[in-house]
């Protein structure tokens, strides 16, 4: 019996650890960094941007969709784990305008991404690119699932072979 209890305890501990990991990795959305956040209440005083977009481009649904898909990949620098598509902060809106203008000027989504990487580093991508050390992020979950499966098979085999003996031992001790 102690084997089963031990295994249950071990699984419980693993689950607890996993939940901690999840909590640590899930970043609180939209906590403005103290020195970085621009004031949100300056709408009336906001500087008018002399954009290069024409009215037709501003209302172009295809361009808007393309902007959204690129902006969703880029991290808002003044937020916590939020894309510039999801952030209402002033800098994120300005960056979205830059994305839109560059797409309108004929740049491909990859070229726009490359522009922001050249300015902010790969940090600006919400999803790390799968090369170098970053491969660990993509490979580790698969490895852990396989290892967990193997562990389960091992432990269940152990239980099923050990259980009858343990039960009969428990019975004899109950009889005493």
């Amino acid at each position, binding site marked *: 019996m102690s084997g089963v209890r031990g295994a249950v305890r071990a699984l419980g501990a693993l689950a607890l650890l996993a939940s901690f990991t999840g909590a*640590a990795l899930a970043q609180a959305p939209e906590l403005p*960094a103290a*020195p970085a956040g621009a004031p949100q209440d300056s709408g009336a005083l906001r*500087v008018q941007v002399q954009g290069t977009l024409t009215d037709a481009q501003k209302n172009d649904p295809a361009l808007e969709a393309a902007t959204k898909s690129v902006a969703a990949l880029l991290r808002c620098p*003044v937020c916590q784990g939020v894309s510039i598509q999801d952030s209402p902060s002033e800098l994120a809106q300005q960056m979205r305008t830059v994305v839109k203008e560059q797409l309108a000027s004929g740049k491909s989504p990859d070229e726009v991404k490359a522009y922001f990487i050249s*300015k*902010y580093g790969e*940090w600006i991508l919400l999803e790390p690119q799968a090369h170098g050390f970053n491969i660990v992020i993509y490979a580790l979950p698969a490895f852990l699932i396989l290892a967990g499966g193997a562990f389960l098979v091992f432990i269940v085999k152990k239980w099923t072979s050990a259980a009858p003996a343990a039960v009969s031992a428990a019975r004899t001790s109950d009889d005493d």
Partner: protein
Amino acid sequence: MNFRRAWIAAAAAAPVLGLFAWGLTRDPNDIPSPLPGRQAPAFALPVFAPGQGALARPIGDTIRLADLKGKVVVLNFWASWCLACRDEHAALSQVAQSYEGQPVQFLGVLYNDVPIKGTSWIMEMGGQSYPSVDDPGARVAIDYGLYGVPETFFLDANGRVAFKNTGPVTSGTVRMKVDSLIAAAQATAPASPASSAAADSAAKSGGAK
């Protein structure tokens, strides 16, 4: 048997705990910039705060980075709503004044703010010796990979980003960077063959003695 299990559990948890411990030593707000070592993004921005004395530029004038070639440039992004900018303002203004007549251009860039507020902030802070320019839409800020203010970029005489300072700068840091960049610019100036020959002969005569 239970000790063995405990050891296995500890060995399995150790890497995870190690990762967490390493994560705690890192400042998530400290983002490494890819810009230092690269050519500085070009800009042409309008002056809204003129500066004082010999460093002054007229309001409405446009300052282009390309026109500053041969000068060390200290580019300070700031805003009137930025509290940390108050800490560095006096130091920057004084240091800029002390470099008057030297090949250095100090330049403030207003970030996500309106020039009128910037001007009244400068008055409230007792003036600013060097000019400040406006950056509508934060285009130049984004070009410089800015994620907050204050951030200060030190550009060498060839227009390359030499160093980036995040947060308020101290006069010591500014002097150290600017001095070394001026020295580097003078060492690589066109007159260098003659001066290096003079240095060689000086070394030889020194060695002969």
